[in-house]
């Protein structure tokens, strides 16, 4: 065989075999991968909407949100998936709103790339509890214990991460209020 065709044939054959093997792997694993993502989302929604029994994806204006219902089928609040810039990369969160009482239920961090040991502590309850049952409004990040409902106590040594989370919560709240018009 001449050299050039041989090079082309061998490389093409390798690429085809590789493609077949990958197509097979993809088919075997894709279902499980999607299940994992779905499960993670469900857990996050249940986490920020206590008493959740079922939820459905709804849309108002530009905002997509999960409307949660309790065991009796009554609405208990909405969960919104939000993201924004952190100290090093994107922070993704699920935020639960109690629309009836105009309060934030709680937040959950889905993924982040903050500094381990410092900014990464935004996932810990000590920081997240800042937002539990917070009335709607403009929040201030403070470096001391909070004095009122609208203050958020920053993590020591991670003020930027703390402020980033607060900004994401505020922006999401504004989006929600815009989407719901004068209702909230």
């Amino acid at each position, binding site marked *: 065989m001449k050299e050039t065709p041989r090079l082309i044939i061998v490389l093409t054959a390798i690429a085809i075999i590789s493609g077949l093997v990958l197509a097979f792997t993809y088919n*075997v694993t894709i279902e499980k991968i999607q299940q994992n993502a779905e499960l993670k989302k469900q857990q996050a929604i249940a986490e920020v909407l206590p008493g959740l029994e079922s939820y459905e994806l709804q849309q108002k204006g530009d905002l997509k949100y999960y409307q949660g219902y309790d065991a009796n089928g009554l609405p208990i609040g909405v969960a919104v998936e939000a993201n924004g810039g952190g100290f090093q990369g994107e922070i993704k969160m699920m935020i639960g709103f109690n629309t009836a009482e105009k309060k934030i239920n709680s937040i959950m961090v889905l993924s982040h790339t903050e500094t*381990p*040991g410092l900014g990464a502590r935004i996932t810990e309850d000590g920081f997240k509890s800042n937002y539990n049952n917070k009335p709607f409004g403009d929040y201030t990040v403070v470096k001391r214990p909070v004095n009122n409902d609208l203050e958020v106590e920053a993590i020591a040594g991670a003020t930027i991460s703390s402020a980033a989370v607060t900004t994401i919560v505020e922006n999401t709240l504004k989006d929600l209020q815009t989407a719901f018009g004068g209702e909230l």
Partner: protein
Amino acid sequence: MSHGRDFVNGLWNENPVFRLVLGMCPTLAVTNAGINGLAMGLATSFVLIFSEIIISLAKKIIPSKVRIPSYIIVIATFVTIADYVLKAFFPDIAEVLGLFIPLIVVNCLILGRSEAFASKQPVSNSIMDAFGMGLGFTWALTFLGIIREVIGMGTFFGLSIPFFTTWWKPWTIMVLPAGAFLTLGILLALMNHLTREK
């Protein structure tokens, strides 16, 4: 060379991290905890073992002019398999290792061993070499990860250590990128010192 020698070679004499100083990008980046080092080492070993087997089997078929693209396709295929399998069955670990799994493709350890060893040696020797190098890489990464985790977070594989975690004030810098350079530098120096005395 005997099979036994090919295997032991990667564990110590030509340890990829401490002797060949190959694959530094994952070595420095993911070893901020013991479990991450272990998972990265095992994923790399998986790719290394299968790539060396295939390349050693196909060494007569692959013309030398297209050997590098051929090796890269073989390596990339196994990396993608590892990526999908981790995402499907070990989602937590896949999330931590994130981008570093696809980056195994360009880990010079794998291409280096394929080119320097598997493309010239019989399959059985290549398997022993891949296992030795893979295990050598894995123990080195796990060791680095454990040191950084214990000093930087005061935990061992995510578990608190009795009588240690309670009073140890974690050195956060050890789990940051700078800690990787410090740990690796000191270990390399130690390793060189020990071998020189012989």
